[in-house]
């Protein structure tokens, strides 16, 4: 067993194949943490959406996957970082169906619904950081 994967991993996001790699690594880590059933798919899909946002808007960035604890709870922490153009209107970006690109505008609000915790910080011209957690049932 790979110790790095058990503790977490950092995936560079530069192209659409990295989106697949990130969500597969997320599913693998989640399974090793003890997530089961639809939670695995939820986590993989949420990673897919934030990774695609990096490729579409920032061109490149990274996704960090780590095991996280709070009290007696165990979960997965997904952090997506880029130094892209940032998001001018965060509130609008979190609304279903809002998109400045060619997407459906369901990515970020959808990812928020799939995870237990979701935080986004973005500064125009400096980049975007999305942190999301899901706790094991």
């Amino acid at each position: 067993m790979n110790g790095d994967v058990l503790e977490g991993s950092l995936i560079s996001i530069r192209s659409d194949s990295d989106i697949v790699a990130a969500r597969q690594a997320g599913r693998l880590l989640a399974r090793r943490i003890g997530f089961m059933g639809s939670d695995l798919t939820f986590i993989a899909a949420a990673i897919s959406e934030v990774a695609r946002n990096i490729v579409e808007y920032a061109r490149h960035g990274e996704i960090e996957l780590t095991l996280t604890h709070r009290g007696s709870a165990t979960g997965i922490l997904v952090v997506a970082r880029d130094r892209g153009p940032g998001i001018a209107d965060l509130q609008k970006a979190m609304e279903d169906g809002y998109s400045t690109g060619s997407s459906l505008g369901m990515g970020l609000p959808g990812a928020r619904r799939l995870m237990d915790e979701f935080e986004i910080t973005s500064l125009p011209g400096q980049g975007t950081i999305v942190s999301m957690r899901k706790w094991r049932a």
Partner: protein
Amino acid sequence: MQVPILKQGDYLIALIQSALTDADLLRLRDDVADRVGTFRSRGVIVDVTSLDVIDSFATRTLSTIAHMLKLRGAETVIVGIQPDVAFTMVQLGLTLEGVGTVLDLEEGLAYLNRRTKEHGKP
């Protein structure tokens, strides 16, 4: 990873066998639109049984495929959306509005037989 597209009588079957990148999905869209013309197909089955995630991009592309093929005179049916995948799509707020979806390949063939018969064959 290129998706094999099999010809089965008047129908085409796109058999997705592994995780697809966005580029793979777009290639599938273009390939299937081409083949419908080449083989004068009346129906297309897209088998997504092996997809473990259908995110917003995949949903949009599957929907585009179905609507494009409709304009080319062929019916499309998506088969094999797994339960966890369906649950996730609902949570993401994704729908395949106006696109035929059935349980498996067998149901897919039955669906296309019904749909293509409605229009009648010359």
